[in-house]
């Protein structure tokens, strides 16, 4: 340490020693109590490019002003927390402008005017991350980067929301027909609304509800008042459509059926499963295995319902085997791969056989 004011710093000696002793370990004390530092760049943040900050470090004016003001307060005796929240490490805030740059995309078009750009917001937000890093003894740049990235994303989200809000609230000129001046130019209006008055179609009555009427006879002048009309004059009403009711995909048409029943239904999703069958080869193999197993059980004298359980490992080894064309009888529960001569595979044992046959 150069001796500019060595004596002043040394005044902390006793207190520092006590502090260290209390902590028990100097290294731990350093970790537990990071040195509160004011970055010079925080103090001069408000100066901007004309001062210490190069253009690439420039913070937005509000952030820079807040940073600088807080740092000045800290430099003049503000408490430690103030140092932290102030920009104590706000140099990291400035650095974050660069750190965040790769994260921040281009300005969001359509964002409301005056909304903070992700980069500027990130730089300000980085102070929080940097402060956290400083207070926890972590790498300030890293923390600032994280804080800035999060802040930048938040700002981007805000801009996105702003954009969406703008789309909702910013009237888009509409042109409507001027009925007061047929043939004239349309009227421009900013009134937003759903001009369509067509009701949504009803899935159960595609053609709408109600009745439609038709004269029972033609209205030709030649037939009016003449007794030769084939039908009684009047109006014949009929439903607009036959309502369709299809809950669960079943069409319960209300239209009378030809056979006189009022309702006819046909499930639209009728089951069409077919019984599962084994291939001839599989059936043959299964019969072979089961046959061998059953004969083995029978040979033990118990048969179905009898005392057929094997009583030793030998029983297990000899029960239910199938012959191998190359190596003779295989151990219990194994079937040789006849086609390839490969390794034998366990396919069943006595227990599974009994369980499959329902033998207890």
């Amino acid at each position, binding site marked *: 340490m150069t001796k500019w004011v060595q004596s002043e710093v040394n005044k902390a000696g006793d207190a520092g020693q006590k502090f260290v002793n209390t902590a028990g370990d*100097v290294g731990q004390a350093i970790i537990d109590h990071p040195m509160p530092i004011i970055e010079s760049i925080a103090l001069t943040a408000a100066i901007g490019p004309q001062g210490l900050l190069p253009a690439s470090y420039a913070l937005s004016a509000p952030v820079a002003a807040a940073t600088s003001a807080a740092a000045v307060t800290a430099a003049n005796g503000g408490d430690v927390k103030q140092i932290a929240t102030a920009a104590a490490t706000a140099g990291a805030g400035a650095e974050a402008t660069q750190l965040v740059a790769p994260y921040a995309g281009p300005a969001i078009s359509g964002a409301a005017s005056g909304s903070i750009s992700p980069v500027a917001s990130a730089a300000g937000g980085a102070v929080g991350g940097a402060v956290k890093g400083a207070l926890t003894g972590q790498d300030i740049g890293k923390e600032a980067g994280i804080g800035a990235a999060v802040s930048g994303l938040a700002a981007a989200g805000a801009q996105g929301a702003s954009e969406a809000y703008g789309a909702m609230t910013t009237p888009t000129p509409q042109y409507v027909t001027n009925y007061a001046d047929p043939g004239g130019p349309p009227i421009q209006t900013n009134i937003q609304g759903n001009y369509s008055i067509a009701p949504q179609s009803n899935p159960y009555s595609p053609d709408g509800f109600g009745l439609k009427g038709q004269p029972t006879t033609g209205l030709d002048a030649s037939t009016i008042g003449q007794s030769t009309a084939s039908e009684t004059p009047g109006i014949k009403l009929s439903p607009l459509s036959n309502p369709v009711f299809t809950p669960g995909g079943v069409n319960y048409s209300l239209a009378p059926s030809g056979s006189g029943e009022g309702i006819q239904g046909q499930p639209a999703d009728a089951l069409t499963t077919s019984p599962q069958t084994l291939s001839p080869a599989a059936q043959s193999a299964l019969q072979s295995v089961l046959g061998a197993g059953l004969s083995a059980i029978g040979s033990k004298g118990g048969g179905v319902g009898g005392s057929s359980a094997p009583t030793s490992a030998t029983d297990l080894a000899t029960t239910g085997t199938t012959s191998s064309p190359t190596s003779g009888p295989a151990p219990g529960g194994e079937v040789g791969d006849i086609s390839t001569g490969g390794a034998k595979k366990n396919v069943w044992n006595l227990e599974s056989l009994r369980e499959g046959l329902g033998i207890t």
Partner: protein
Amino acid sequence: MAKMTTQEIIAKSVAGSGQDPKQVHAQMTQRALNDPKFRIIRSGNTLFSYYNQGNGNALVAMDTAATPRELIKDVGEFAKAMKVAKFKQGKFEIGNPQIEKVLKMAGVNYKLMPMPNGQMAGVMEF
């Protein structure tokens, strides 16, 4: 030069002085945490500790791990920061005459004054 940690700066600064860098770090931290008049400003890889005497006056000490060229920049930044913080003068003991050259090259106004112990002190003008 890459940005060092405060521990690294102090370690490099006190190297060869017989001081324990951890002890120095702990002392500075303790003082900064408990004495609102004692503050540490960092510029580059240089730590400027100062004691606020009031009326815009401060006693200044320095720990640096910077190269001479970097130190010139750091001192200049510190001087500007102190000016922003409304300080007017910073007194310091001259332990190394080279500091005068650094101050000159950094564009910091200063003057020399004798101290009671016979040493020379410098006064930076912010």
